[in-house]
């Protein structure tokens, strides 16, 4: 049996038993569904289902490598795009390690330009530095460190959605994508009809794009108000509070090296470091709104820029502004890992362990020949690193390596 048929067989067994875990999205009859088939990498789109039973039996029958549905609601989901009749769409966010630069990413992620063959490590660039090409082949790894950093971006995002946008934590549904990231889904009547331009404004808010510190009080005179404490802005909700708290965090943790990395000159760095305690004291009283002795206007701006960068959440901007987007179906299998897309409550974010909670295959073993794989964990068990070797692994680990294309099946 070849590797692909083997994976498909495991997926098939899984769905025979667990397709019943797939739940109907709200207003299922208004959603478009799409499935990527194992065979020929074909995408079956424009499907629609009246009931969740119909959806489940379809999944059982075709056994897709990936299963999706639309964030959008349509009058006629099965029609061609221009005739579907768009009725609105949920607000959706995607946080993927692909967009977050990490140290380990430089080791385990690779890309190759499809046009000229140039290769590199870490985050895939938008255009090839060699030829300007825009399409790449990637080899990425869902490593634990990267997943953790994606999670902390999600925590920031959820905080912004609840504190600033005012969604209740129950309206905000979070999930693990089944590969390298997390999704955040808001179903709410008031956001349903927002167009892409309005959604872009939400994206810019979350990513801090276009933020002008002056409009949040930086450089303004009358920053200390009669009520006293609000002058410093620590407890303000919104970007004013984030700037104030974030700048404080940046400065109090700053080493000489950090400050240099902000682009500050040696002299300026020296001055800040020797006045650090004093500056922080002043900030505790009246916030980072003015340059003060030892901290020039430019240095303040540099610290605030870094604070904005730290406090913003690194979401995939395209996903949120696309009001016809197909998103992964919860409790379906991800064809690149054999892991599940798992929805969980926001209160569980801290405790959620993707490498345990998303494991689908819990029975049996398989023998595989691993080309190359870094050390990885699934559940409580550690595997690898492997290089050019034949090993017998528990099914979840074997399917994972096969799906990632890091291993071949051994008969």
């Amino acid at each position, binding site marked *: 049996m070849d590797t692909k048929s083997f994976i498909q067989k495991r997926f098939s067994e899984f769905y025979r038993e667990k397709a019943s875990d797939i739940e109907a999205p709200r207003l299922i009859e208004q959603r478009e569904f799409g499935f990527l088939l194992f065979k020929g990498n074909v995408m079956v789109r424009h499907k629609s289902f009246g009931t969740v039973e119909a959806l489940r039996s379809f999944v059982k029958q075709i056994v897709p490598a990936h299963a999706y549905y639309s964030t959008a609601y349509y009058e006629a989901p099965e029609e061609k795009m221009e005739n579907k009749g768009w009725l609105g769409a949920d607000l959706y966010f995607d946080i993927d390690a692909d967009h977050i630069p990490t140290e380990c990413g430089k080791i385990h992620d690779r890309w190759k330009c499809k046009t000229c063959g140039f290769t590199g490590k870490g985050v895939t660039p938008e255009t090839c530095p060699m030829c300007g090409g825009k399409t790449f082949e990637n080899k990425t790894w869902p490593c634990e460190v990267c997943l953790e950093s994606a999670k902390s971006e999600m925590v920031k995002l959820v905080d912004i959605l609840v*504190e*600033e*946008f005012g969604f209740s934590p129950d309206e905000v549904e979070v999930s693990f994508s089944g590969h390298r990231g997390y999704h955040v889904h808001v179903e709410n009547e008031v956001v349903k009809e927002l167009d892409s331009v*309005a959604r872009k404004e939400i994206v810019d808010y979350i990513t801090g794009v276009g933020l002008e510190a002056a409009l949040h*009080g930086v450089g303004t005179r009358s*920053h200390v108000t009669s009520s006293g404490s609000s002058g410093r802005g620590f407890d303000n*909700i919104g970007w004013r509070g984030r700037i104030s708290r974030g700048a404080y965090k940046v400065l109090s943790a700053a080493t000489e090296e950090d400050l240099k990395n902000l682009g500050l000159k040696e002299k300026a760095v020296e001055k800040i470091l020797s006045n650090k305690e004093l500056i922080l004291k002043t900030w505790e009283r009246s916030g980072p709104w003015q340059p003060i002795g030892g901290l020039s206007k430019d240095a303040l701006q540099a610290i605030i820029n870094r604070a904005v960068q730290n406090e913003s959440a690194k979401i995939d901007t395209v996903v949120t502004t696309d009001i016809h987007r197909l998103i992964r179906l919860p409790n379906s299998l991800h064809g690149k890992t054999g892991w599940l897309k798992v929805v969980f409550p926001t209160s569980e974010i801290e405790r959620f362990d993707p490498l345990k909670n998303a494991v689908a295959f819990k029975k049996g073993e398989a023998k595989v020949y691993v080309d190359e794989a870094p050390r990885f964990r699934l559940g409580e068990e550690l595997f690898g690193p492997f290089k050019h070797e034949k090993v017998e692994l528990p099914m979840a680990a074997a399917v994972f390596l096969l799906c990632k294309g890091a291993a071949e099946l051994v008969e």
Partner: protein
Amino acid sequence: MVLTRFDLAKYPFVLDAAEEVRRLDLDIGNLENPALKAILDRAENRIEEALRNSPPEVSYRPREEDVEIPSFPVAVILAAASGNDYIKRRYALAEAIRAYKLLQDEDEKKVLEIAKVFNWNIQNVKKIIGHRRYDFALSFTDFLRNAKLFHEMEWKLVNRMLVKGKVYLRQREAARLLQEEIRRRIEERLRSDVRSMLPEPVLRRIDDLKRKYASRIAKAQFQDFPRQVVNEAFPPCIRMLYDAAKSGQHVSHLGRFTLTSFLINIGMKPEKVVDLFRSSSDFNVRIARYQVEHIAGQRGSRTRYKPPRCETLKTHGLCPGPDDLCKTIRRPLSYYGKKTRTLKKEVSAN
């Protein structure tokens, strides 16, 4: 709080227009009745003020409720009957600006009352945060619907105080957003075709007005597009034609006309447009130049042609399928206008 007749004269758009016309027995066919002359005169005058004043603005006349209130719905009927997009847009804007100015100094309770007419989720707040004082808290969706096309950085959501779903605003800002809402609502009302229902003398008034301001209307057709051609802002139909022409593929006559008139109207030099067709197999410089200059209004009829409406393009198979922005417009040029404005905002935001 209830709005008084004094308030209604300031904000006549909050009334159901049809209701108001009925109440006064102002049936449309009866508009030439001399008893109603004052109302009709003021209605016409409202539109004229919109066309004459720059920036457009309708005047406010206190203590004339009996004319001020009914003249608004009548003016809406007249503007709609003009059938001219420029007059309609200009009139809606002028009424909205009038309201904006009045709302800035209005009693806060009344501002709320008017916002509620448009189903805004808005409250009074009295807050000073940092260095700023705020008067209102508006739901971010109502905010975005109205502010998303403003260019200034202070209108970007990221630069606003956003707390628990509410954007904090000063009264002037709330009034500015209401202006936008009012403009849109009036423009919606202006869409209906009422011409056939109006008596001859009334129609004559509209046509006279059109004639009087003909040069202004004509000039306004040259919308203020960016000085440089922004290829990324082409609608799908133009994009398709442009690529086809560039790669020397056959482009139908209407296709050429559409592409040429589009490019000329957004400010591309005629020579450049001629160059675009160079790779086509049947290219002939002389003929191409003649055609382009003709469309540009440098020859023959001296009128500058505009690209056909979406409807026409669709029936001739030149619309490759509308995208989201297409759904908000009726002609490719408006698409370009809107898109360049959003792109500009994005660039300044980066």
